[in-house]
């Protein structure tokens, strides 16, 4: 079938289309800027998550590969958690890490941005502890203190 949509037809129709908006189909109702704000908050708490995982891993004397193997999670996923605050981890990964490090699965899920925590105080505290830590080869006294604080905040005992 020969198309009637030749360039002349298109240009004539374009004149009619001027000043109008075209679009059809199901729409998404949640505004993006709000999501961006939420993402920024989640990014902050994921920074704390990444810092916690790095410190806890180093305290256990494990390399990234060794921890990935021990927890039965993907190495790339673990690296992303430690180094990329935008990375949204897999639910299973968070469960496995919480189990390995002996902290609350529920709180770690909240910190990862996979769930929205009802009580955000522990998230704020975790962010503060993470901010205090510095990356050096061995755990310094401050890092150890920061890690202890993170563990305390993320354990089930402190609700």
């Amino acid at each position, binding site marked *: *079938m020969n*198309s*009637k*949509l*030749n*360039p*002349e*037809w*298109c*240009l*004539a*129709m*374009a*004149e*009619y*289309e*001027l*000043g*109008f*908006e*075209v*679009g*059809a*189909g*199901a*729409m*998404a*109702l*949640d*505004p*993006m*800027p709000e999501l961006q704000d939420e993402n920024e908050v989640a990014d902050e708490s994921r920074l704390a998550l990444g810092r916690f995982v790095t410190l806890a891993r180093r305290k256990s004397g494990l390399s990234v590969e060794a921890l990935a193997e021990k927890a039965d999670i993907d190495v790339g996923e673990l690296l992303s958690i430690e180094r990329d605050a935008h990375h949204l981890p897999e639910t299973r990964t968070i469960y496995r890490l919480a189990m390995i490090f002996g902290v609350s699965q529920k709180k770690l899920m909240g910190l990862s941005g996979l769930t929205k925590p009802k009580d955000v105080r522990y998230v704020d505290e975790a962010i503060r502890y993470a901010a205090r830590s510095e990356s050096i080869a061995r755990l310094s006294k401050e890092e150890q203190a920061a890690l202890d604080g993170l563990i305390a905040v993320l354990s089930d005992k402190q609700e």
Partner: protein
Amino acid sequence: MTPAGPKQIIPVALLNVASRSPVVAELWKPITEKNLADWEVLWAPETAGQLKVLHQAGIERRLWPQSRKWDWRQKQEAFRGRLDNQSYAVMQGGETQAMMIVDLSARARLDEQVRQHLVYIDFLEAAPWNRRTLTGGQPRFAGAGSILLGAAIELSLEQGFKGRIGLHSLPQSNDFYANACGMCDLGADENYSNLRYFEMTPEIAAKFLKKGA
């Protein structure tokens, strides 16, 4: 997998709004990997930039572009391989200017053609730079919407549906479908996010095609 290249290319034209001059363009069928990459690399950042401006300007949320979160790759993947879905893209200057996915299994709702087959436009979106921005910017090109509607009508004719098409309009596009296209407005559809449902009869379709001839 989404095809690397189009199976069919039809020469078309768009109107450069600033200079009011014609520009050569192409209608691609189906949507290709290139179109999806354009959506990711070109459309998404542009849309995000426009939304930021709208947000900072304090524009009411209901006035923002309603298609801002569509994920074309996801849509295309969902429809890929289904024989009752077809897709199109308008190309100009090596960039995707608009995209559309249609469904051939839908039936008409309008009384005079109820339950008759039609081409239902599942999704239609113009590139963000081809939309009027609420902060005063003018679109780069006009005409992509009419080309895609025309393509949907021609597909309807090819399928023996006599030009019947239907769609759920985005709120900011109601005026276009009702007044520029003369489609029948069947009102807000509560089963579809309250978007208004529009339908074109064979007579309206013929009139639409004739309008630009």
